[in-house]
């Protein structure tokens, strides 16, 4: 009964989205307030029905209802509660359900919090959002229905893919989807602006909370996925330049550019046409990501199943939405009025620089990700484009961007003084020189350029500190007055500083671990030692330990540093009888921001065990930096200007706005 309710709710949601996609748009075109006012209740009802469908699927999983094919294929009643819940989205059908749920959720946020939006803009935006929802609901109902039944229900399910049986699955996909589906609403706002044929700085202010929210979730989702891959795959890598990872990085880069260009639009009424284009491109990249991951053109842990019909369906959605949006843009954008003037050396100029580099870096990732697919379909040659390509293209662009980043916030709007900014950054530059010298003196080995990388990271971090120090005048006025200034600073200024600081922290982590990390691979017998970077790891033996739906073979190791006992590590081989598969559960020991990483191979017949031991200096900084960025985004989101400052349109203005401006 429960799956049928879910199925039915899904169809009702489709019907509602069709109403939501037509009536408010007709209303906005004909200036009919009744039709336009249908947008809010239908968006809310749509969300409720999608939530019911999602809830029904989740309930089927929690009750281990194996008469549902999807549950049978991906769950097992022996799994702990958390994994029975998370396996809802640990498969193709369920993850698409999560996709449309989040899409509906963002539509609902516009319905609930969009009270200060102009009525026509809200009607258009919710209408466009409904079209996206309708397309994906059709996709689910036609090609990926999660509610199919099996007549004779099996007694036990086939279990979830073991790699996915990890708390990371509870966090990573929902967060990532909140990010990349979150940009759908920004896309809808952009299309709404084009349909209205009118765009002003207020648009950027209205859309900013959604850009920020989506960007924050995407940042955390990518970082979470990276940490998960790091500890779960047993190789200790934090980023593989795998096409699926790139699929989430591309919208992040475009979204970061959008975040910055929207500031220019809001403050200076410039870059309007460009900002609209970025909003369209960001969500287009999210759609391309969905296509890459869900269509089966790639093989990876993320491609749950391959069915050619699905690929073609998503491709059609992709072509219709991206093609339609860009065509509309080409038609309407020339009608939008150009905005304010600014000198090349200015805050705007710096943000344009940021946009150029972020979009170029994004383009290199797109080329590296799609070129192998294009080449294969054209010539049949199969190639792989791996880390060397991205390090040689993405790397230099990003380093240049980092070098210029600290200057941006110190330049004035309209016309900036680069010399004055450079003077203010003198302290940061000196500290970075000290860091370079220290890195040369303290670290042995590693690439010659690595200390300079440390220098850039420190420069970025200190640049963010300089920005706050300048704004509070901490060096020039008494501490009490500076503190009052600090409290009085707009939260968005703090947000910028935190996010920029976070980029520096992440860069420091990446450089630390890639330049000075070390590893040992060895076969050990009980009593053997492995020495690595001041640490001595002694193998004590293996024992087995049963779990709910798996069996562990645990290796026990004691760790000494400079002769002093600092703890034990227990890397594990976990085998899952239901699928006859096994996974590696690495053991991690944190020492400050650095980690020891130990993973176990299959024990040999003679009792020896192959192990991989890594020393990962400063590795935790990579994800700590992402937390800084998330926190900075949150501060910026809580800025009161975003809520109070957005003026309610006056009656007269509303009447003018409601005219289709053609």
């Amino acid at each position, binding site marked *: 009964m429960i799956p049928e309710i879910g199925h039915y709710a899904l169809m009702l949601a489709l019907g509602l989205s069709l109403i939501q996609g037509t009536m408010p748009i007709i209303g906005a075109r004909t200036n009919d307030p009744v039709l336009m006012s249908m947008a809010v209740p239908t968006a809310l009802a749509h969300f409720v029905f999608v939530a019911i469908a999602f809830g029904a699927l989740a309930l089927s999983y929690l009750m281990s209802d194996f008469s549902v094919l999807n549950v049978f294929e991906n769950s097992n009643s022996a799994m702990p509660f958390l994994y029975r819940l998370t396996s809802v989205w640990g498969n193709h059908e369920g993850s698409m359900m999560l996709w449309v749920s989040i899409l509906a959720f963002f539509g609902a946020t516009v319905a609930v919090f969009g009270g200060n939006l102009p009525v026509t803009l809200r009607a258009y935006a919710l209408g466009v959002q409904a079209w996206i929802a309708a397309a994906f609901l059709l996709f689910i109902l036609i090609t990926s229905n999660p509610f199919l039944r099996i007549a004779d229900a099996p007694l036990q399910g086939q279990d979830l893919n073991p790699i996915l049986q990890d708390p990371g699955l509870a966090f990573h996909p929902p967060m990532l989807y909140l990010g990349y589906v979150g940009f759908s609403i920004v896309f809808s706002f952009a299309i709404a602006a084009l349909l209205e044929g009118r765009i002003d700085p207020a648009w950027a202010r209205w859309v900013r909370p959604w850009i920020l929210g989506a960007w924050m979730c995407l940042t955390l989702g990518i970082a979470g996925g990276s940490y998960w891959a790091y500890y779960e795959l047993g190789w200790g890598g934090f980023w593989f330049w795998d096409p699926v990872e790139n699929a989430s990085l591309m919208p992040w880069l475009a979204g970061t550019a959008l975040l910055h260009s929207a500031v220019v639009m809001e403050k200076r009424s410039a870059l309007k046409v460009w900002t609209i284009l970025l909003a369209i491109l960001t969500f287009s990249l999210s759609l391309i990501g969905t296509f890459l991951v869900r269509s089966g053109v790639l093989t990876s842990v993320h491609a749950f199943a391959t069915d050619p019909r699905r690929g073609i369906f998503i491709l059609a959605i992709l072509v219709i939405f991206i093609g339609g949006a860009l065509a509309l843009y080409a038609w309407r954008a020339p009608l939008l009025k150009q905005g304010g003037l600014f000198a090349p050396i200015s805050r705007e100029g710096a943000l344009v620089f940021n946009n150029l580099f972020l979009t170029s870096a994004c383009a290199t990732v797109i080329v590296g990700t799609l070129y192998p697919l294009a080449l294969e379909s054209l010539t049949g*040659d199969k190639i792989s484009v791996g880390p*060397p390509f991205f390090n040689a293209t993405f790397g230099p662009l990003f380093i240049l961007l980092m070098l210029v980043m600290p200057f941006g916030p110190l330049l004035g709007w309209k016309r900036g003084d680069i010399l004055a900014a450079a003077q203010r950054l003198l302290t940061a530059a000196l500290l970075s020189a000290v860091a370079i010298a220290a890195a040369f003196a303290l670290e042995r080995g590693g690439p010659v350029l690595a200390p300079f990388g440390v220098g850039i990271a420190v420069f970025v971090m200190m640049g963010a500190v300089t920005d706050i120090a300048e704004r509070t005048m901490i060096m020039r006025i008494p501490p009490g007055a500076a503190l009052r200034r600090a409290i009085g600073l707009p939260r968005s200024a703090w947000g910028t500083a935190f996010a920029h600081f976070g980029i520096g922290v992440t860069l420091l982590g990446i450089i630390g671990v890639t330049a000075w990390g070390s590893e040992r691979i060895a076969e050990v017998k009980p009593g053997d030692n492995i020495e690595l970077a001041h640490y001595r790891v002694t193998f004590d033996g293996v024992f087995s330990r049963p779990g709910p739906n798996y069996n562990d073979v645990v290796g026990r190791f004691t760790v000494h540093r400079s002769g002093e006992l600092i703890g034990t590590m227990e890397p594990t081989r976990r085998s899952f009888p239901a699928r006859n598969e096994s996974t590696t559960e690495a053991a991690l020991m944190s020492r400050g921001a650095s980690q020891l990483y130990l993973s176990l*191979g299959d024990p040999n017949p003679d009792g020896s065990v192959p192990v991989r031991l890594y020393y990962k200096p400063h590795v935790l900084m990579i994800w700590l930096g992402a937390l800084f960025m998330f926190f900075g985004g949150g501060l910026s989101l809580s800025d009161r200007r975003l809520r109070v400052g957005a003026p309610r349109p006056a009656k007269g203005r509303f009447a003018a706005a409601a005219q289709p401006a053609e």
Partner: protein
Amino acid sequence: MTRKQRRLVLIGGGLGVLAVAVALMLNAFRDSIVFFNSPSDVAEKHVSPGTRIRLGGLVKDGSVVRSDNMTIRFEVTDGKSEIPVSYQGVLPDLFREGQGVVAEGALDRGGVFDADTILAKHDEKYMPKEVADALKKSGHWQDDYAQRPAVPVGQNK
């Protein structure tokens, strides 16, 4: 500066950055691309020793030999040709005889493929897509490679 000059500076800057990005990409494409080959491809195309390639196929049954220093030797086959592979290190969780594998490395002068990476990537059928395609091409694809754990037949609603 006039509006026109400012716009020119912007457009010039944009084109400049784009040119740099394109130059970086072309340069990277020259040295960092790795082609995928099946054992038959290697035999037909006469891949020269030292060229980095990806080699994909099935791990031949009974060919895995483990020796000291964690060195593993096995043969990769696509049903037509076989190539001996040597690898030092810990194998990924899903490495098995009779299953698909992708190894990255280069041939040495003796015709042994010296792999530095054995890819752990796989889909739920244990068959990397490249390997499946290569097997289909060489006519050695068997449907049971792709068989999912059996769902009771004909009982889908």
